[in-house]
């Protein structure tokens, strides 16, 4: 939670500095964000590749439950598409691009800003932050009415880090490996899906 607050803090400080014109806009014309994004993707890859133990533990999961990440992605995209039809301001594809952030707000908002501009990037940031917050808050209710898999699906790409403790608390410790697996798969899918929906 604290690290999320710091991240949002950087965004807010940046907005204020931009708003009051403290920082010259010429910074934005450079390719800083493009190179930082490339470096970020490289580092995410390094951290995934350097942890083969996690990958091995995935073989112990009930094979049917391996479907969960796929269902999360399909459900999210379908839900975002339907809502996108109803929203007057954003198109179905834009809405699906935002939805395909799956709660991974830092990465998805950065990508979408790069491809579609800061306006949709801001929507992506707000939408995916609220997904994480709602997943944290609603976990007990979701378990009660929709079963123990629901908080994992709601958490999207955050189920291997920020929402993991809350999932273990309400769904049970035996769902930890599934939750990490789910987070791992959906995390990996975010850059691909976001790029896909931004380029359609």
């Amino acid at each position: 939670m604290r690290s999320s607050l710091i991240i949002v803090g950087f965004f807010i400080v940046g907005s204020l500095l931009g708003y009051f014109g403290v920082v010259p806009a010429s910074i934005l014309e450079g390719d800083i964000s493009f190179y930082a994004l490339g470096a970020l993707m490289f580092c995410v890859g390094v951290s995934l590749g350097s942890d083969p133990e996690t990958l091995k533990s995935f073989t112990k999961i009930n094979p049917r439950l391996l479907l969960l990440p796929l269902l999360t992605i399909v459900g999210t995209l379908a839900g975002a598409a339907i809502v996108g039809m109803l929203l007057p301001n954003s198109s179905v594809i834009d809405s699906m691009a935002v939805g395909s952030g799956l709660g991974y707000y830092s990465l998805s908002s950065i990508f979408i800003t790069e491809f579609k501009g800061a306006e949709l990037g801001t929507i992506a940031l707000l939408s995916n932050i609220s997904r994480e917050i709602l997943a944290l808050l609603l976990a007990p209710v979701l378990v009660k009415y929709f079963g123990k898999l629901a908080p994992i699906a709601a958490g999207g790409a955050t189920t291997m880090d920020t929402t993991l403790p809350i999932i273990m608390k309400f769904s049970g410790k035996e769902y930890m490996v599934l939750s990490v697996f789910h987070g791992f798969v959906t995390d990996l899918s975010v850059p691909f899906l976001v790029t896909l929906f931004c380029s359609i």
Partner: protein
Amino acid sequence: MILGIGVGYIFRKRNLSFISKVITVLIWILLFVLGLEVGSNPQIVSNLGNLGLDALIITLGALLGSITLAALLWKIVNKSKVQ
């Protein structure tokens, strides 16, 4: 990213704990730049309320869709246990 996975696998025995710090700092920089862009764009600033509402509605749609499918899978898995 795939290049990174390869590099990470090769160097998996070294201490790579610094990499998560690098990731954090890169995310800070990128969101700071996004903030700069948003703040210096008056159209976005004046529209922030609407953007927030759109964002929330998309989130609710996304959550509803994914939770429905998860509930379905939960039912199927439990049914097969009973039989």
